[in-house]
């Protein structure tokens, strides 16, 4: 049967209307279309329709983008940005940062680049271990902690002894979080402790703490500003005070976590 005599199928008509297909196919389709008045009418109608649709709401392409949408885009990037960049945009934590920042800068000046890199790696490891600990223990239903909040006095005494400094459990009840309990964990610079908190809807956050770097080295006994790290949906704020690190981690929005970090910091 002569292929030219075959009626064009709907799919072929769409290909003609939308210009989808390679040049050879298109040429042969156009040839067959020339002999098919019924198909021609259909193609013409669909082509007109396509052009009509192409003009629909065209003005939106030139309109300025609503602020709420550009803000949503910023959120995408916020989760990847360091606090240093974030600080420039937001005055929210400015007062808090000022007190951190002064001490941090003072220490940075006296630290050589090699020591700074090693310490930066130690801090990155620290927050990464905090995230892993969160990922492992926060989904636990039956054994999320080793020692439950009912034994809080014992929990604090035990972990303080193992970590080698007097710990305090922050009170986050004003933020809707209650202590679940805590556990002892291994870390790259010795023992680490994890306190877990939970809110009314079952959302959990953890406060992970322990030495960062080598406490014997003077260069490692410095402090840093609040820093933000995200791994997938897991967000952490962390800071180092006198060589001792804290990481607050949760599967929550950055702003909510920042508010919690601001509540935790003064209590430690």
């Amino acid at each position, binding site marked *: 049967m002569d292929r030219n005599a075959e009626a064009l199928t709907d799919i072929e008509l769409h290909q003609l209307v*939308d210009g989808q297909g390679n040049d050879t196919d298109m040429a042969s389709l156009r040839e067959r279309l020339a002999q098919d008045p019924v198909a021609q009418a259909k193609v013409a109608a669909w082509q007109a329709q396509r052009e*009509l649709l192409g003009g*629909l*709401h065209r003005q939106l392409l030139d*309109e300025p*983008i609503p602020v709420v949408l550009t803000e949503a885009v910023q959120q*995408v990037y916020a989760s990847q940005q360091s606090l240093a960049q974030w600080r420039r945009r937001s005055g929210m934590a400015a007062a808090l940062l000022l007190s951190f920042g002064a001490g941090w800068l003072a220490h940075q000046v006296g630290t050589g680049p090699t020591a700074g890199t090693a310490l930066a790696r130690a801090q990155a490891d620290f927050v990464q271990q905090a995230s892993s600990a969160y990922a492992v223990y926060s989904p636990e239903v039956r054994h999320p902690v080793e020692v439950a909040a009912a034994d809080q006095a014992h929990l604090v005494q035990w972990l303080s002894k193992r970590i080698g400094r007097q710990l305090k459990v922050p009170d986050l009840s004003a933020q809707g979080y209650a202590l679940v309990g805590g556990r002892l964990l291994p870390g790259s610079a010795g023992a680490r402790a994890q306190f877990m908190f939970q809110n009314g809807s079952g959302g959990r956050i953890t406060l992970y703490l322990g030495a960062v770097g080598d406490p014997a080295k003077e260069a490692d006994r410095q402090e840093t500003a609040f820093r933000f790290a995200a791994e997938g949906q897991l967000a952490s704020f962390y800071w180092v005070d006198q060589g001792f690190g804290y990481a607050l981690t949760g599967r929550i929005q950055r702003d909510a976590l920042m508010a919690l970090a601001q509540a935790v910091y003064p209590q430690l």
Partner: protein
Amino acid sequence: MNRSDLVAQIPGLRRYARALTGDAWAADDLVQDTLERACAKWHLWAVGSDLRAWLFTLMHNLYASDARRTIRQQQAGVRVDLNDVTQELVAPETANELGLDLQRCLLMLPEDQRTVLLLVSLEDMRYEDVARITGTPIGTVMSRLSRARSRLQALLAAPSRTPSTQTTLLRRLK
């Protein structure tokens, strides 16, 4: 990949969402939800892959799940107002009026047909990409496109201002 790449996608997403929903507020809500979903799932976007197709996929999934909710609302009798409102807006056949009529007819198409038609005609997407975005086989995409084009043609040709004609027309098309 930087911020301006994502911002550059917003106007297109807004226009598509507007044509899909027929409502400026609902459209921008949908775009915002899409961007927030993109934020939450950012780690799933493979660097170097088609950002636009990924965003349209997110939007499609959000709209499809939202459309199921809307269908329940329609069954509760919420959507009946649409034609009444449009008829109150009868005015000389300006470009705006033509767009309004086109939008009204678009909204009379089933959601899955409207989606395919808009992705192909408005967004000029390849059939394979439409299949990927909507998660349907390409054969289904093509048959939806055929039904959408034939039905929209009939709707646009019909004397649209009289509801009785529309009803008859829709019945005949089944």
